[in-house]
């Protein structure tokens, strides 16, 4: 049995971070069979986080973000071609060019794409774009190089906020329009959101919250500005649409797998479920496209758009693809995420949206250092630090050990007089950008129940 598992045909769909790391791990674990990576993008795997940071600041070229290979893969690369379907019974992957790839085990790592601007005509205007791929980033960097008079950022999640930060650092005027009450509120809740409002304004961002863009305006096929729901109008030459991500699962529509808009559901070992909730043993999933149960979050199926999760999950999936049952490992890593914006380093551990309360535990918001700790029903479930990443390890430990919330007294640099307040994680539906951490299943925050349509 175990000999078989190290041999045979493995196909990986999606040749980005998760796909590459899984391929490397398969070889590390002694897989000697044939390995094929299918990727829609023509480029070899590259890293996305710099695309909204260093690349927009001109510190790195969009084409310089290639992911370093950790080992030689001896793999077949099928780049620039899309997978269009799956026949799980015949174990064949269908490609857009008509080819059919047979496999013994399959890994789905198709990630997400940027949610497009809903009006296709407006989206087609010159100067309107989204940011997900290196080509997007190259285009946006070129547009910023031309020093537009104003950039419009639609949606103030992490990507939108990072773009706004890059614009300000380059001395460009930028307007950020966010439907929610604050930037980052979908991922980090109201308390950190309120802090982010002050941060952005202090850096000269023209921030408009509680407002939506109702139309992008064009002149001769070029973007000229936008109309907002409060009746105002702004002029802008560039608009970056940052409305969150869409999971790349359409190609699995007829596969009989549990794949849909929320992702591809799997068990703790990354094995994909069928639509009837029966676990498969030859189809695995990892990265942004996966929904997986996490014991720290009550076994709800969570989906994370996190660089670190893509790697950790890919490694577990690959391990399990070549290991017999009792040797298989669960994917239990505590989620963590980072972002850099406005000269600050924001990091999180745990799942901040899985919370009912939050407390500012350490730091000094005025001096740009902060530790916010999140709790759910009396235990610590997440922490967010601003320029204080060194404390994350401690809070990770508290999350893992289900330590009581709020954390006890005595921390160095603690913020005096703080009390827990509702974490104020809004219903994702009121946000214009998708939350970066999507807790699918029921959301613990009571505000969600308030939003249920009244009888």
């Amino acid at each position: 049995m175990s000999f078989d598992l190290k041999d045979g045909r493995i196909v990986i769909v999606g040749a980005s971070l998760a796909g590459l790391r899984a391929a490397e791990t398969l070889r590390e674990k002694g897989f000697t069979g044939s390995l094929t990576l299918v990727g829609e993008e023509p480029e070899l795997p590259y890293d996305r986080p710099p695309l909204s940071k260093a690349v927009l600041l001109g510190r790195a070229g969009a084409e310089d973000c290639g992911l370093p290979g950790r080992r030689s893969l001896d793999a077949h690369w099928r780049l620039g071609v899309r997978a269009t379907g799956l026949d799980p019974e015949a174990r064949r992957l269908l490609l857009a060019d008509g080819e059919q790839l047979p496999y013994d085990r399959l890994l789905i790592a198709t990630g997400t794409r940027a949610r497009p601007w809903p009006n296709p005509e407006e989206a087609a205007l010159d100067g309107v774009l989204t940011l997900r791929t290196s080509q997007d980033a190259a285009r946006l960097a070129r547009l910023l190089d031309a020093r537009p008079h104003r950039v419009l950022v639609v949606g103030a999640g992490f990507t939108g906020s990072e773009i706004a930060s890059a614009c300000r650092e380059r001395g460009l005027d930028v307007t950020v329009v966010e439907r929610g009450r604050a930037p980052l509120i979908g991922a980090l809740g109201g308390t950190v959101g309120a802090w982010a409002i002050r941060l952005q304004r202090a850096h000269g961002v023209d921030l408009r919250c509680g407002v939506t863009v109702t139309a992008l305006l064009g002149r001769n096929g070029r973007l000229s500005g936008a109309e907002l729901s409060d009746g105002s109008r702004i002029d802008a030459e560039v608009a970056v649409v940052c409305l969150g991500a869409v999971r790349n699962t359409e190609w699995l529509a007829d596969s009989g797998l549990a794949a849909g808009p929320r992702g591809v559901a799997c068990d703790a070992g990354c094995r994909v479920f069928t639509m009837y909730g029966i676990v498969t043993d030859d189809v695995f999933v990892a990265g942004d496209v996966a929904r997986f149960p996490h014991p720290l979050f009550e076994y709800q199926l969570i989906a994370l758009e996190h660089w670190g999760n893509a790697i950790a999950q890919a490694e577990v999936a690959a391990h399990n693809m070549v290991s017999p049952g009792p040797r298989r490992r669960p994917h239990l890593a505590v989620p963590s995420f980072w972002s850099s914006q406005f000269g600050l380093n924001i990091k999180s551990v745990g799942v901040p949206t899985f919370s009912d309360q939050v407390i500012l535990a350490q730091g000094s918001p005025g001096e740009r250092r902060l530790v916010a700790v999140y709790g759910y029903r009396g235990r610590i479930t997440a922490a967010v630090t601003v320029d204080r990443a060194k404390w994350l390890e401690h809070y990770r430990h508290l999350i893992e050990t289900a330590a009581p919330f709020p954390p006890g007294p005595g921390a160095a640099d603690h913020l005096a007089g703080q009390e827990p307040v509702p974490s104020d994680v809004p219903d994702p539906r009121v946000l214009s950008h998708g939350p970066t951490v999507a807790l699918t299943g029921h959301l613990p925050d009571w505000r969600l129940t308030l939003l249920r349509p009244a009888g």
Partner: protein
Amino acid sequence: MSTDTLFRRITDYANRPDPYPLYAELREHGVARQEDGAFLVGTYDEITALLHDPRVSSDVRNRDDAEELLAGEDPAAPRSFIALDDPEHDRLRRLAMRRFGPPHTPGRIDALRQDITAIAEDLARGLGEKQHIDIVDDFAFPLPVAVICRLLGVPGEDVPQVHEWADAVVAGLDFSPEEEPAERRRTALQARQAMGVYLGELARTRRERPTGDLLSQLANEDGPDGRLTDGELMSTATLLLIAGHETTVNLITNGVLTLGRHPEALQRLCDDPELMPRAVEELLRFEPPVQFLPQRTPLADIEVAGVTVPKGAPLILVLASGNRDPLRFPEPDRFRPDREDNQHLGFGSGVHSCFGAPLARLETQIALTVLLRRLGSWRLLADPPEYRRSPVLRGPRHLPVERGGGVS
């Protein structure tokens, strides 16, 4: 024996050559309260967690017995960041790090490679054809001070004086509970002050006329965290000089001692010098120069492995014991120079983890490589060797070896 005397037994000079059985006893008991109210922790997971815990202070002013401990010190004198907590610790460490390593000055330590090699070769050449060598006096002892002086930009003619002060300061730490420490402490305090005054004056000169070295840069730093005050500059420079002195001496010496005891490992290293970086990591685990951290204090009652350590109590983290924890390291009592997954506590962990680690690593790797090449075959003349008094900065006072007759 009762565990509340463990600390007394660990610090007992008679146990200096081999404290490891006592550490095993400590781990058996998890957290051991001592007769004087101090708490000893010796298991890897607990030590690591405490070193990351914001409720654990490095500032002894938070001790219940602070007044006694600080007798004779000027309370207004600036403290070095090893003895401070967030946010002061963070600011001072960050300011110093800007000119020491990544992200702002990534090449600094690597640029010293040639200098260090030259200094080590020089010392090794000085051994000549001598038959009997004291690894401490003839080689390990002069090296780190020479290197840190080069880094800071202390002029060559002042190095002997700086060395003398550094020795006196370190001797002040070399306590044993039996003796009356006042005299030693007074000498140490004076040396520290003299060193501070000297470095302060040097820094003022460098402020006017920078010479490209670390001290010049620290003196003229104007980053987002502002500038170091004169007092902060003095205490930071003094810290850098002292922290890397005896620790590195001991690591090099412990390296020679350990290799003398493990001929197969020595042979492997001679055959395959590429193994040296990993061997140095294993040394930091197996015979760490800093055996325990005696300065921690909880800022609130905290629970450690089921025991409540009260606010203000002395909390002693026995790094050398964590390094031998079988729950973390397979075959912990074996010296395995090619050990994988070796996240030892030799440089501490968490927010105060060793600032100078990249330098110490490079220095020790170079020193041992040069020394082994120059020594030819050799053997230990005294095993165990005579140890220094300190149970914290534990290492041989002398390590006599004889050329010929041994391995390689």
